[in-house]
């Protein structure tokens, strides 16, 4: 015993002599530690989420009160963006389009993906598989720097002449080539920004897959991986293989915009009455195919990490193993494969042909099966559990029905006959926001509350966490639920005046024009959206105050979890584990009969094997 202590002490002293005080730059900016990179991604992702929300808040104001100066930020818009973009502090149609395009881009590529995949993945995956770091730490750093540069380019595009890209986050050609009179314009910035972000994703994806394949601790077999790791593994493959076609498309659109090619510009293109001076012969459909070849797997990039987080928190807070672990794993793999052959269900109204529509309709219905299996496993996991209703669990419990609404309302969009009516309406907006906003973002909140104690050594405040949860749940639904009604009535997307031009008030002779009630909901949604922003204030304050004032964790494993990320010091040091890790058991060994505690860590050797 004495000898052991002595050795440990000697080791510590030895380590101390080699421990250099790192400078701020090498510790926080040029760090190769997966945990620091995870936090870098997390902070930037959250800032971009907030920024993307701000764009949306201004857009909702414009829809409810077209042409009226935006309160609070109106004068700022006028002084920064000028009277063309923001006349008198109101939002012009062009500015609305720019905000809309950038809201989508920022939320998806700079908000959710960095947070769900890069931040949580970077911080948690190496810990959960018992690795000392990612397989390629310097590549990991380069990945974050590419991402950051891409974010800067996107952000800067607001302030160049002509403003940011305004052809939708999907950047359909030929609009995206023709929308700006300037040669180098917001769309150019968008494309360069995207190429940087795609490079970042590529580097991240290679790293994640290599890490999960190569650096699993001894005994960590594939079927002992926590479901979160599986979800990140499949997500990484989606990013690896689905993003490059968009990179190719981005390069081609850049060629169209800067070098006069006609990849996506058809013959006979006439702009404002004059034939466009281009060779023609291109195909606008080609852009859509290449875009959605990424675009649909991207949906699963947004949702799979969220499902991974949900799985961890459900198992931990029901204190029982996940129901159907193998079904979950095979389902997530099936989703990964199928997500590559459903993309054209975004294109039913393009006239690509009924046979193709029918094929993609079929695959779309098939992919809903593994999604439903996953959700069903989660619901059944609750059965018979002794549930701890802490803040992360509340967000997870809300995720289940919210994602359910988002998923089920997607079915009518997957059938091409129903989609003809609903396409490009607010119904679509409501559908995918239910998947991503109260779905994925709730799971991300849950993840933040859940892993915060490991990262900081302190808990976030439970009371304010619950306030944040209940207000967010209420206002999320008040924002998105009315959009189903508006959409089914035929209110279309991307109207800076909220569809006033198509309203019954302005077109009394058209009986199918949008009703006064639906138009009135624009105001209701606007209020709910602003209230949703206010509801995030408790979270933001809680997040920062808890770093210094939060309740200290009583031990390294405050939630009593069986997975490996909790079997480390708090916060985990560079290199993560104090001693080499060996894995002996399943990830969710909760309430094992006969065990001393209600959880059995994966690295705890079975009692009998010592002798």
């Amino acid at each position, binding site marked *: 015993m004495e000898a052991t202590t002595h050795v440990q002490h000697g080791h510590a002293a030895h380590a101390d002599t080699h421990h250099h005080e790192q400078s701020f730059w090498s510790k926080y900016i040029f760090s190769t530690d997966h945990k620091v990179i995870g936090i870098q991604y997390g902070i930037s992702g959250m800032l971009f989420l907030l920024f993307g929300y701000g764009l949306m808040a201004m857009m909702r104001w414009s829809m409810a009160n077209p042409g009226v100066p935006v309160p609070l930020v109106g004068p700022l818009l006028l002084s920064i963006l000028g009277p063309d973009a923001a006349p008198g502090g109101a939002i012009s149609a062009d500015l609305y389009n720019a905000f809309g395009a950038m809201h989508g881009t920022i939320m998806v590529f700079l908000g959710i993906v960095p947070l769900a995949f890069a931040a949580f993945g970077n911080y948690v995956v190496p810990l959960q598989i018992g*690795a*000392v*770091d990612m*397989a*390629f*730490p310097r*590549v990991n750093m380069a990945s974050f720097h590419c991402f950051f540069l891409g974010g800067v380019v996107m952000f800067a595009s607001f302030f160049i002449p002509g403003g940011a890209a305004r052809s939708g986050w999907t950047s359909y050609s030929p609009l995206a080539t023709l929308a700006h009179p300037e040669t180098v314009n917001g769309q150019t910035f968008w494309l360069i920004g995207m190429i940087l972000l795609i490079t970042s994703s*590529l580097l991240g*994806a*290679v*790293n994640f*897959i*290599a890490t999960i*394949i*190569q*650096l699993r601790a001894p005994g960590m077999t594939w079927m002992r991986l926590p479901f979160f790791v599986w979800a990140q593994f499949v997500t990484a493959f989606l990013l*690896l*293989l*689905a*993003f*490059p*076609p968009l*990179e*190719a*498309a981005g*390069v*081609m659109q850049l*060629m169209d915009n800067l*070098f*006069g*090619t*006609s*990849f996506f510009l058809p013959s006979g293109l006439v702009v404002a009455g004059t034939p466009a*001076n*281009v*060779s023609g*012969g*291109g*195909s606008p459909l*080609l852009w859509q*195919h*290449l875009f959605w*070849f990424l675009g649909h797997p991207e949906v699963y990039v947004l949702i799979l990490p969220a499902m991974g987080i949900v799985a961890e928190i459900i198992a931990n807070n029901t204190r029982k193993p996940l129901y159907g672990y193998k079904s979950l794993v095979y389902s997530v793999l099936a989703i990964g494969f199928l997500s590559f052959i459903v993309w054209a269900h975004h294109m039913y109204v393009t006239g690509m042909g009924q046979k193709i529509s029918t094929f993609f309709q079929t695959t779309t219905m098939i992919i809903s099966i593994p999604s439903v299996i996953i959700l069903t496993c989660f619901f059944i996991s609750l059965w018979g559990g002794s549930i701890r209703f802490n803040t992360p669990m509340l967000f997870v419990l809300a995720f289940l029905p919210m994602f359910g609404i988002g998923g089920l309302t997607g079915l009518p969009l997957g059938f091409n006959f129903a989609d003809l009516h609903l396409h490009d309406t607010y119904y679509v907006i409501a559908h995918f926001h239910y998947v991503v906003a109260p779905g994925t973002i709730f799971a991300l909140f849950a993840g933040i509350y859940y892993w915060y104690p490991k990262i900081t050594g302190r808990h976030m405040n439970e009371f304010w966490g619950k306030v944040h949860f209940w207000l967010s749940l209420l206002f999320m639904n008040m924002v998105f639920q009315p959009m189903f009604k508006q959409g089914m009535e035929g209110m279309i997307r991307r109207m800076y005046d909220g569809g006033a031009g198509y309203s019954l008030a302005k077109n009394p002779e058209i009986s199918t024009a949008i009703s006064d009630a639906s138009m009135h909901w624009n105001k209701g949604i606007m209020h709910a959206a602003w209230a949703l922003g206010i509801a995030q204030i408790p979270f933001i304050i809680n997040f920062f105050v808890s770093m210094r004032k939060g309740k200290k964790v009583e031990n390294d494993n405050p939630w009593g979890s069986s997975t490996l990320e909790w079997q480390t010091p708090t916060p985990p040091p*560079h*290199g993560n584990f104090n001693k080499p890790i060996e894995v002996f058991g399943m990830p969710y060994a909760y309430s094992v009969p006969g065990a001393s505690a209600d959880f059995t860590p994966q690295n705890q050797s079975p009692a009998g094997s010592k002798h």
Partner: protein
Amino acid sequence: MEIPYTVKARPDTGLYNAKIGIWLFLASEVMLFGALFSSYILLRVGADPLSWPQGLLNIPIGTFNTAVLITSSVTVVLGWSALKMGNFAAYRKYQAVTVLCAAAFLVIKCLIEYPEKFGHYEVWKADGTRMTGHIEGNPFFLTHKKLQEGKIESIKFQPDKKHYNDKPPADAKGGAAKPSPVEIKTADIKRLSAFTPAHGTFFGIYFTLTALHGLHVLGGGIVIAYLWGPGAKLWKTDPERYANRVEVSGLFWHFVDLVWIFLFPVFYLL
């Protein structure tokens, strides 16, 4: 802290980390080039067959460049296997050939093939006829708009012997006749374009794909040259790790060659 399997293979996967990394990277590269090749197919299928340019690229030069890249593919393997057998001097020789081949390929592509196209024109006349050829003085990147802005009334045009959709006219002896130069008035021109990306979708995709491939040749060449030169210090301290690096760069190099093996027939021959 030491990351495992950076040099030695993990027993159950049989791979060291970088090898799995490069294969994953190449998988994504396949998707990148695959998307561009698919775009080529879609654009060509959708194009008017008579207006799709054929036979406008220099096949002898393309063939030579193909041979250059295949040679480099052979030497990169020979170099690596020499290194694995501990023969550093032979590795240096073989890999020098690889780097020279990469440089030769780029020089031929960027200094001979591309400029040849920038001074080669197609003119669409207002009467519906069109022809390919060279303009007197051999200017680059001339367009109809530049003619109008420069107030140039006419150009002297030397038509090609063969246009891409007709047979060359025969002279008295049965050989291909050289057409005589013609004077074309700017007012009679509907469109004038050198064989640049803006000429049409064929040259658009040709330049996009070959330039992207060229960047890959450049990148691969730089990495191989670095390992050959300053990076070779590692051979003395950690030869196995150094050989791994060479192997990984070689895998990438083979991919770059393979892309060209597809590019050459698709653009030059079909």
